[in-house]
């Protein structure tokens, strides 16, 4: 009888291990599109960050925490992801606020234009990297398109089982996880492809930003107030026809900021002052900054964070300083390697 019980337990354990191994094998590894690995990389650096950046590609391609530390002694993390929708930003912030007591939360407002979930591929790039918590469940429920279900997020194998016939060498190589792709959430791009287009965005039928976006912005503001953090709204300096920032949207954000007592910094008209050169500082013809542009913007904003928002210089703290020196060294190593 005892042997039978042991055998049954072993069989169940073996089945569970095989199921988990299959799960690890079929999950997308985001090797070709490393943006899908960004959200999950936060946990190794969670806690002790004084500035948190949230938003879409316009944050993870624009702000370099290693430079903020090196020049201003500011400890920060960029929790950005591709097409990060505002409700995802809110739940990511809620999750991070359990581990952090930041002085400032910086939110890039471009994604305010989206009032509805867009597509599963982008949802997955933000949500799959989150550890399980009530914040993750909230983010999933707010993000799902009609074709998605919570159970597919709980058991991704149900969603990705068809990949079993499309596995590549990378799926085996990175079975236990791919190496870190970011530097404290900053995704480095070193190429230079000058901006040549003068095209602007197409006319819109309706310029009103969705009300749901403002509802989540209210929630972010309330969460920051509760934790004593300053919420700073920003618009990254990029303005390409594909991701155009309309004056009508800018006014709505400015009005909201005025009414709520928040600061809103639109970096688009500040490009010259920042020193951004669109023939050198972009890797994709003006849609995003490359590392040269991101370093310039980070330096400019770091000065503001330091002087206007009084974010402390913590280079005197030996333990934190040691951890950041490792990250800064890694950043420059990556920069030299990718040149």
């Amino acid at each position: 009888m005892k042997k039978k019980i042991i055998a049954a337990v072993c069989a169940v354990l073996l089945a569970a291990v095989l199921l988990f191994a299959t799960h690890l094998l079929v999950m997308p590894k985001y090797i070709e599109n490393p943006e899908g690995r960004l959200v999950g990389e936060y946990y190794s650096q969670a806690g002790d960050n004084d500035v948190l950046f949230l938003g879409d590609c316009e944050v993870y391609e624009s702000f370099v925490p290693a430079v903020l530390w090196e020049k201003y002694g500011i400890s920060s993390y960029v929790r950005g992801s591709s097409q990060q929708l505002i409700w995802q930003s809110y739940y990511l912030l809620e999750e991070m606020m359990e581990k952090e007591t930041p002085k400032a939360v910086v939110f890039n407002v471009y994604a305010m234009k989206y009032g509805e979930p867009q597509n599963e591929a982008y949802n997955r790039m933000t949500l799959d990297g989150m550890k399980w918590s009530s914040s993750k469940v909230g983010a999933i429920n707010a993000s799902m398109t009609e074709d998605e279900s919570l159970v597919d997020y709980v058991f991704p194998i149900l969603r990705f089982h068809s990949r079993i016939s499309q596995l590549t060498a990378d799926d085996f190589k990175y079975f236990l996880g791919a190496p870190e792709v970011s530097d404290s959430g900053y995704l480095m791009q070193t190429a230079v492809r000058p901006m040549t287009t003068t095209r602007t965005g197409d006319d819109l039928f309706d310029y009103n930003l969705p009300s749901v976006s403002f509802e989540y912005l209210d929630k972010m503001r309330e969460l920051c107030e509760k934790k004593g953090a300053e919420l700073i709204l920003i618009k990254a300096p990029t303005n390409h026809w594909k991701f155009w920032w309309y004056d009508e949207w800018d006014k709505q954000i400015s009005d909201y900021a005025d009414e709520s007592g928040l600061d809103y910094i639109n970096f688009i008209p500040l490009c010259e002052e920042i020193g951004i050169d669109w023939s050198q500082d972009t890797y994709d013809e003006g849609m995003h900054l490359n590392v040269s542009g991101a370093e310039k913007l980070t330096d400019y904003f770091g000065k503001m964070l330091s002087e206007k928002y009084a974010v402390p210089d913590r280079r005197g703290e030996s333990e934190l300083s040691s951890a950041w020196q490792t990250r800064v060294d890694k950043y420059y190593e990556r920069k030299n390697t990718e040149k």
Partner: protein
Amino acid sequence: MKKILALCIALLLIFAVVGCGDETPKGDDVLKLNFYVMYKGEQVKVGVEAKDIIPKLGEYKSEDGEACGTNEKDVIYTLSGIEIETHVSGESEIIRQIKIIDDSQTTVEGITIGSTRDEVIAAYGKVYTEGSSGAIRYEGDASAIEFHFGSSGNVSNIYIKRR
């Protein structure tokens, strides 16, 4: 029996009167199911493979914008009088928008850049939605056509968009 007959006739009359009202879309209903432009003798529509039509339209300039985190991108082909925007995903490149950019090109109903709002409504009817921008939109099954107006009050841009 007579009462029922009278009621049926009354209902038919009501439906007939409603059907004849000004709210009925004007023009060719077939066109309104999927708006398109005629360009060099070709019907250019949204929702179709770009490779089947763009090579037939002559010279163009193109520029693209890649999506973040995916291998997808949008491409804009600029031809004389129109721009065609496509979305590229894998092997597929689907036309998602056609924009009339000058008065060398008209819609099938004869509307072009500089037309008046009254001319648009006379051509397309009174069943439209109006956006906060002041633009007006007519919905088809597979596409919609939007007329945007400049500071002069006349049409400044025309878009045919995939629904």
